[in-house]
């Protein structure tokens, strides 16, 4: 019963990721795609947590942290690229 509910929750998260992939593909502007990719990363974190409950292992909990950091840095890089056209701003060095 518990495993059935966890598999149902995992299925719901995969449905959410599929809907967000639809938004990534058709999104009319680049910030749409950036927001949808950020949300996909956040949903993948939840999926990894459910998988680590289902397999009753603690080995995947580092992957949650790594994926959170990568999703955040990727979103920051996307938004800076959309705003300025460059990612690393070297103007302040002088």
């Amino acid at each position, binding site marked *: 019963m*518990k495993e059935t*509910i*966890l598999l*149902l*929750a*995992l*299925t*719901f*998260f995969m*449905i*959410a*990721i599929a*809907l*967000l992939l*639809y*938004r990534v593909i058709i999104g009319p*502007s*680049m*910030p*749409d795609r*950036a*927001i*949808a990719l*950020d*949300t996909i990363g*956040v*949903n993948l*974190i*939840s999926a990894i*947590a*459910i998988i*680590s*409950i289902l397999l*009753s292992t*603690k080995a995947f*909990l*580092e992957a*949650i*942290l790594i994926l*959170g*950091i990568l*999703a*955040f840095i990727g*979103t*920051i890089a*996307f*938004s*800076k690229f*959309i*705003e*300025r056209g460059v990612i690393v*701003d070297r*103007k302040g060095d002088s």
Partner: protein
Amino acid sequence: MLSLTAKEILEWVAILLVLFASIISVISAFGMIKLPDVYTRSHAATKSSTLAVLACLLGAFIYFWVHDGYVSIRLILGIIFVFITAPVAGHLVCRAAYRARVPLAKNSGEDELKSILFDGDIGATTTAVLANEDVENK
């Protein structure tokens, strides 16, 4: 009548938290499909999706705590990290979207920032101090 121990009740609480998180996540993804422009979609993407991931990680934390007696510092760190960074990411993407002149939806009312940010002599007004750095970089 089935009798549950405290351990089983807490496990059920954790699993129902995970189920609640997945339902919230599907609602959030549905909002990402149906809402009209970037600025309204960012509500669906940041708020409800953050609630979903916080509930799911809290469920996993309670489950490991009750089932294995294992207090996972990494899950607490993940919860704090997502809780801090998700609003920042949503704000930055919306700012970039506005400055890249992504249009608003038709029925979203008057756009008061547009005349301040994009028209006229920006350097002369006091409100443009915030925008000054970005104008120099254009």
